[in-house]
């Protein structure tokens, strides 16, 4: 069982035009939500490279939240459609890793939906609590030890991820 | 009606508990739900009235011989023991407890009911009375009006 003081940590990638602005609006409206999210601003959710998500998870984030404009409302016409397609592929891959579905989430939040920022973040934090820490870093260590001990079977996908992490650490 | 529904809401909000529970207004609600579908703030007034009635019965705050809570209680008892309601018997019971003189004043109506074959004197009852009683008894009492509060 994990540490009782453990709090889920979420890295969020928000597009500049809709979701980041919505988060600003949540602030201006003084809505209160869980302090577990760290927002990284990008111009468009289309900029979210799957590697960012992997790097966040490998860096011991417990969840990743991506926020973009509603379909049809993208500031760059259809960047969010590209995000959606990429996201669906990534989800399949993460499932292969054994990473729970709730840990990576994509939400369309328009500039006026400050309240949705609040509810999505609160909901996600609550969904991550029962899952406990992802602790990929520790897992990598364990897997490394297994490789050292000569058991390569369980290490294959994670090793690829580890490289990614190492490259950007 | 001493307080309009709007005034009842305002009194509840301002925490005038006694005034609200002693008000005849909450008993005057006949549950037609007109206010509920009408309210521009989508307040479920009828359900709140129910919650207030439950509270008043629970705390025993209502006028003596006031017929509505008596009807509610008699209704409750009859269902508990028979499973069904026999309206004519229920009304007689109510009149006896609340105001026996009323029985005299509505004798014409009683005769009318007998004449039209609607005066039922035999208790309607269900077969599995014990089952129903067990179901009702399985319910431990909790705060009245909890459902309407949540839903509101």
């Amino acid at each position, binding site marked *: 069982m994990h540490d009782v003081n453990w709090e889920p940590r979420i890295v969020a990638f928000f597009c500049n035009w809709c979701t980041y602005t919505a988060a600003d609006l949540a602030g201006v409206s003084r809505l209160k939500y869980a302090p577990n999210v760290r927002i990284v601003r990008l111009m468009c959710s289309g900029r979210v490279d799957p590697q960012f998500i992997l790097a966040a998870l490998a860096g011991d984030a417990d969840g990743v939240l991506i926020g973009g404009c509603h379909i049809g409302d993208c500031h760059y016409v259809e960047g969010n459609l590209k995000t959606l397609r990429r996201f669906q592929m990534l989800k399949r891959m993460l499932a292969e890793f054994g990473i729970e579905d709730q840990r990576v989430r994509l939400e369309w939040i328009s500039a006026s939906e400050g309240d949705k920022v609040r509810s999505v973040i609160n909901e996600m934090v609550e969904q991550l609590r029962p899952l406990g820490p992802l602790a990929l870093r520790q897992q990598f260590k364990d897997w490394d030890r297994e490789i050292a001990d000569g058991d390569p079977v369980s290490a294959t996908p994670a090793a690829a991820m580890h490289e990614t992490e190492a490259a950007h650490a | *009606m001493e307080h309009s529904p709007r005034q009842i809401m305002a009194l509840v909000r301002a925490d005038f508990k006694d005034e609200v529970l002693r008000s005849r207004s909450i*008993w*005057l609600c*006949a*549950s*037609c*739900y*007109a206010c*509920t*579908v009408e309210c521009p703030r989508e307040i*479920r007034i*009828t359900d709140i009235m*129910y*919650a207030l009635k*439950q509270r008043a*019965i629970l705390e025993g705050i209502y006028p003596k011989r006031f*017929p*509505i*809570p008596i*009807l*509610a*209680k008699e*209704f*409750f008892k009859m*269902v508990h023991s028979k*499973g*069904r*309601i*026999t*309206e*004519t018997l229920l*009304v007689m019971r*109510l009149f006896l407890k609340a105001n026996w003189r009323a029985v005299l004043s509505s004798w014409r*109506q009683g005769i*009318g*009911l007998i004449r*039209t*074959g*609607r005066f*039922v004197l035999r208790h*309607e009852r*269900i077969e*599995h009375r014990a*089952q*129903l009683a*067990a*179901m*009702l008894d*399985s*319910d*431990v*009492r*909790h705060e*009245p*009006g*909890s*459902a*309407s509060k*949540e*839903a509101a």
Partner: protein
Amino acid sequence: MKYAYFPGCSLKGLGKAYEESLLPVMERLGVELVELDDWNCCGATAYMSVDESKACILASRNLALAEKTGSRDLVTPCSACYLVLNKTKHYLKDSPEIRESVQRALDTAGLQYSGAMPVRHPLDILVNDVGLDVIREKVVRPLTGLKVAPYYGCQVVRPYATFDDAWNPTTMDRLLATLGAEVVPYPLKTKCCGGSLTGTLPDTGLRLTYILLKEAVRRGADVIATICPLCQFNLDAYHDQIARQWGPVPIPTVYFTQLMGLAFGLPESQLGLNRNFVRMKPLPAIPAKA
């Protein structure tokens, strides 16, 4: 078409005539109503005032019994039953606390309820499942010239108005017109009849009843058609008291199913019309078939 049928206490007592007219009319239209075995009181409005969760337990036993029959829908003619059964469905969905109490009670009795079965009113069944065209075909004695004030009362249309508008319902208007009757505009069609207040606080309750009767008379109606046993009782049984207090407002109030029965050519004696305090004038004899 086959439906589970919950008559409710009133239809076995003061509202006998409702059942007496409903069943043959439905039969004439090929609708089979199968009465629930050992149903209990729905709880009505009175029970809600005492204990909400117990009221829901009462209703849930009936809902569970209905589901056990495997029927598609549960039909109930009484407005209070219709409301309480639907309300219980909603509460079970929205309130975890009620859900828990009800589940415990159902477990006690070894019953199950999924919450899926719709609870519907005969008016809904007649107009939306059977259809006005089918009904029109069965009319042998059109109610031509009969001016009817359609009175819906409260609890079928509010707050769970699933098949009609909460303020200005028209289902019964259309049905009555199909029978050949002349439907008079009746703005009070969803106003409260006083409910149980006519008995408990007559000063308040009877005034509401009086207003309904007076306006129907003012509109030139011959008869008020109703869909609820309590409404029928209130509008029918207090003419003496009302006349003493405000003057006479002589107009009969009958169930819409009674008017259907008349239009279908069913004998008046079998439709419970003789149970009224204020009797409806007999219709002209059935015209000879051309």
